[in-house]
């Protein structure tokens, strides 16, 4: 091989490493970079909703194909919310919580030297990296990125003439998603094997941190739920290129011209998609729930109340998450009997979730708390989980869903429960394990300020969306004020956008804190939090400081 020795060792140590800790950090940094992209897309979307005729000036110069003399094109708006959702759900939150924390911590928390299959682990990261590049590359495609929503419902996503994004952009989306699923599957089986087979013999399952438990359930959910989107992606690619009609019904007319072929069922895609899609929501939730419980244990100085029932609740939530997907299709015309069945499962999944909330209160009640930054984020998750869980119960009832389905209410709901709880989980984990990763502490003062601002502006952004939804504001619209009855909502939408801008600005504090602490943070010592889980107490699990 050519190249000098030092660059080789740098490559093998930090780039093509097989060490689970390096791979975990690779996931974290990649996800952090993609979060900037996903966040920027969201801001542009928000500006458009609040001021539809806005001249985007500088932004339009950066992405000329999406704008017409500074004003956004409607098809580009659709591409923006599609890519925002896809990138944030899969490439940022799943990757950070599971690829990042999971890879770094599972071996440490179960007392293993590394993952069961280190090569597979590295492969899984690199497939993820390639799939993110493919997903991002669609921004330079002339017809633009996929624009059929992160749910990619056909026929919109199947017919090239239905929307510009359904050309090459949609193919790149499908290929990137299929690769992401392969990466996630490889990671999942690695997690499962590591937790079950490489656990220290003297460590019983009932002694594991709840974060590790959450990773076990996440791995199972991923392995069993994700393949259905692989199947659907292959079928949609065949529909788009090989002349099949799995999802394209008979007798379509697109802008006056008959569509050849047909006979398929678009609703079949929805079933396959949501069979993945709903467990994916819990894939994002469970790690945060696990982290919250573990942090409550550490910072109240006592094991979380009802540890055993916390594990059972996670198991029930995971199991039931396979039975609720139909609630995304209540208004699709599904049989009322089926609708009722899905309403029952959807509503009852709130029972184990309620148990978690009550147990958390019992853990915190009358205890001296150490309000460190990670603990603040965990308390924030408690609040988000309650707020978002309650609006979930609304949407789980079929008659209420008739009115609120596909409105801003749903957008507010899932940003609070799924996106919010997962994002707060990322922050909780980053602050908590930062000393383990880098041997230094993050600034508590900056951390507290960042938390308080994020907490306030997160709710200021997403809570009013419930009100807009109740007033009938439909989602994914480029210009809501085409409707007379939505015109009075402009000031509310402007408020939401300003709150979102403030939320974005508050994140600057985090980046300052993160990178400053990386170089200048106070040395943490081996045991900064007085935590008892193995990643802190086992001598060989001390960070080398990457």
């Amino acid at each position: 091989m050519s190249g000098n020795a030092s660059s080789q060792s740098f490559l093998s140590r930090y780039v093509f490493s097989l060490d689970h800790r390096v791979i975990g950090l690779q996931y974290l940094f990649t996800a952090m970079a993609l979060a900037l992209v996903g966040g920027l897309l969201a801001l542009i979307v928000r500006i458009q909703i609040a001021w539809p005729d806005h001249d985007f000036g500088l932004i339009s110069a950066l992405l000329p194909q999406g704008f017409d003399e500074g004003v956004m094109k409607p098809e580009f708006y659709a591409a923006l919310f599609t890519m925002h959702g896809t990138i944030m759900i899969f490439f940022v939150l799943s990757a950070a919580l599971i690829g990042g924390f999971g890879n770094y911590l599972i071996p440490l928390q179960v007392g293993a030297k590394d993952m069961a299959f280190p090569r597979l682990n590295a492969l899984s990261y690199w497939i993820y990296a390639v799939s993110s590049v493919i997903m991002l590359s669609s921004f330079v495609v002339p017809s633009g990125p996929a624009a059929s929503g992160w749910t990619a419902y056909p026929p919109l996503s199947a017919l090239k003439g239905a929307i510009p994004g359904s050309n090459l952009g949609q193919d790149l989306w499908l290929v990137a998603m299929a690769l992401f699923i392969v990466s996630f599957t490889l990671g999942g089986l690695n997690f499962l094997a590591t937790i079950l087979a490489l656990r220290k013999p003297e460590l019983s399952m009932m002694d594991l941190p709840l974060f590790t438990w959450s990773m076990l359930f996440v791995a199972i959910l991923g392995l069993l739920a994700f393949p259905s989107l692989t199947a659907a992606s292959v079928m949609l690619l065949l529909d788009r290129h090989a002349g099949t009609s799995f999802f394209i019904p008979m007798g379509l007319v697109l802008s006056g011209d008959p569509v050849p072929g047909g006979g398929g069922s678009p609703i079949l895609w929805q079933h396959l998609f949501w069979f993945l899609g709903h467990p994916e929501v819990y894939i994002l939730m469970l790690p945060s729930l696990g982290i919250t419980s573990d942090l409550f244990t550490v910072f109240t100085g006592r094991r979380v109340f009802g540890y055993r029932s916390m594990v059972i609740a996670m198991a029930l939530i995971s199991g039931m998450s396979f039975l609720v997907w139909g609630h995304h299709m209540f208004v699709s015309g599904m049989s009322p009997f089926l609708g009722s069945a899905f309403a029952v499962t959807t509503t009852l999944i709130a029972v184990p979730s309620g148990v978690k909330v009550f147990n958390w209160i019992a853990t915190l009640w009358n205890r001296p708390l150490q309000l460190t930054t990670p603990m603040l984020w965990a308390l924030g998750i408690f609040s988000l989980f309650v707020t978002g869980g309650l609006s979930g119960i609304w949407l789980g009832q079929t008659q209420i869903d008739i009115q609120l389905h596909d409105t801003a209410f749903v957008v507010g709901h899932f940003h609070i429960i799924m996106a919010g709880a997962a994002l707060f989980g990322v922050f909780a984990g980053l602050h908590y394990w930062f000393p383990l990763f880098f041997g230094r502490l993050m600034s508590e003062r900056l951390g507290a300020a960042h938390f308080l601002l994020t907490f306030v502006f997160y709710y200021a952004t997403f809570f009013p969306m419930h009100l807009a939804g109740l007033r009938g504001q439909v989602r994914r619209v480029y210009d809501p004020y085409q409707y007379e009855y939505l015109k009075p909502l402009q000031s509310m939408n402007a408020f939401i956008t300003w709150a979102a801008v403030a939320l974005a600005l508050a994140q600057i504090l985090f980046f300052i804190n993160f990178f400053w602490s990386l170089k200048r943070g106070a040395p943490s010592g081996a045991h900064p939090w007085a935590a008892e889980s193995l990643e802190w107490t086992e001598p060989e699990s001390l960070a080398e400081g990457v």
Partner: protein
Amino acid sequence: MTEDAPRNGGQLARVFALLTAAFAAWAAYALATSSMPPLAADRGRIDSAIELNLIVSGVVFLGAHLALVLVLLRRPREARIPRENIRVEMLWTALTAAILVALLVNSEIDARALAGGDEGADAPKPVVVEVVAQQFAWNFRLPGEDGIFGRTDPRLVDQAELNFIGLDKKDPASEDDILLPQGLLILPAGREIKVRLRSLDVIHSFFVASFRVKRDAMPGLQGEFTFTPTTPGSFELACAEHCGLGHYRMRGLIEVVPEAEWAGKVKEATQ
């Protein structure tokens, strides 16, 4: 590090508690005073269900956030809370389940009532309307005197001839079909409306916020649902499912008129 961390009862805790209390109070107030577009159809059950849920979830929401505020503000005293107490856990599991089951039963009763269908033989026949969605417009058709919709065929669609739904004019049943102008539907107040919903191209969704009605228009399938508009006036029909670049402007108008004026208004609109 952990020794000098801020404690509950301290300054940071007070700031956090204040923000939490302010948010919870604002959220509860905003939701309790929030409004929906004025109800103009016989579907008040949905409004009642939302009110019921608002009360139930409001209590839980305020309770949980009150607990959080108290946890933050109170200086802890010596308490004897065990690590586990199966009886207490069973109690709150059962309580949660009982509330949820009650909500579910209510939802099921509402769903059945809203689905409608079997009012008995003596009820007046519903007015049948065919709604055909396309990128990015709504087509409305009434069957006319004979009560039968004429045949349609996608191959006959001719936008230049304004035959958007591909009506077969050779079919005798299509002679008296009434094609309303695109985007305008005129309905009689107080009569039950039966909508036959389909789509020509991609998935759309028929949403009238004031009627509390929403149903996806699935290409290849025909959906059917009923509602009764109660108040004369004009109401906006929105597309609720992302259907392409013109999704935002796929707007329709529904004019509800007193039943006596209905036939005249329809005639006026089609001339």
